[in-house]
């Protein structure tokens, strides 16, 4: 058996779906955020695989931009979590964020 690009792409789709489900299922903000990272990684795998099948470097270059964006997002996201935690000194689950509703 030969590993075809389709295998990679199906795996990436599976990882993306797991990340998306985790985003909906989990209430812990930090873990939800990790699920976003899972989704971004699935996208990276897709980019690199297409880059190989299309014999085109753009896909690999795209991964760099995703990495920069992910790093910036992590910095801001974790700063937000720290700010919230400082203010409330309680848990970090999404249920604690409940003052807004309607």
């Amino acid at each position, binding site marked *: *058996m030969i590993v075809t690009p389709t*295998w990679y792409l199906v*795996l990436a789709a599976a990882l993306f779906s797991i990340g998306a489900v985790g985003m909906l299922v989990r209430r812990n903000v930090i873990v939800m955020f990790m*699920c976003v*990272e899972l989704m971004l990684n699935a996208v990276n795998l897709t980019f690199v695989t297409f880059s190989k099948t*299309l014999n085109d*470097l*753009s896909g*690999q270059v795209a991964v760099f931009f995703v990495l920069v964006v992910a790093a910036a997002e992590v910095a*801001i996201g974790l700063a937000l979590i720290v700010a919230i935690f400082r203010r409330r000194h309680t848990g970090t689950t999404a249920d604690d964020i409940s003052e807004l509703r309607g």
Partner: protein
Amino acid sequence: MVTLVLFIAFAIIALVGALGVVISRNPVHSALWLVATLLSMAGFFILEGAYLVSAVQVIVYASAIVVLFLFVIMLLGVDREESLTDPLKVQRPVALMLGLVVFALLIGLMGNHWATGAQSATAALESGDGGNVERVAREIFTTYLWPFELTSALLVVAVVGGVALARRSRRAEAASEVAQ
């Protein structure tokens, strides 16, 4: 054959890691499972000949970003267990169904022919001189120069935003003391 074995091994690690992130009760365990997935991603990138991307994946993602996660978890002391039986019982099966539907749709829509695009004319993987690093660099500094310049703005945003959120403001503290 080697590729097949490696692919299956990495795939198992990646999937188990991803499930581990979602299922673990303890955020620290989630972060460690995330490392497993990220490292197996780096393995996939090597299998597919994207050597530079693979190295960057290990350096930036698996180390810097995960360390930042762990740092915040430890800083806040939220590494205690979270009960997974939460008030939103209905949400879980619905989310699972939704995830399966999305996965099935993606697979179903795309069938066996995922990559229908044109073969590259200008930026082929193996043409030109230099290795993978040089060719990726050339792409970034020619075709993708504008997004590359834009990322500098992104980094400024990350710095300014991080400072604005995490700094203790003297002005704000004075105001809240007055309010109390």
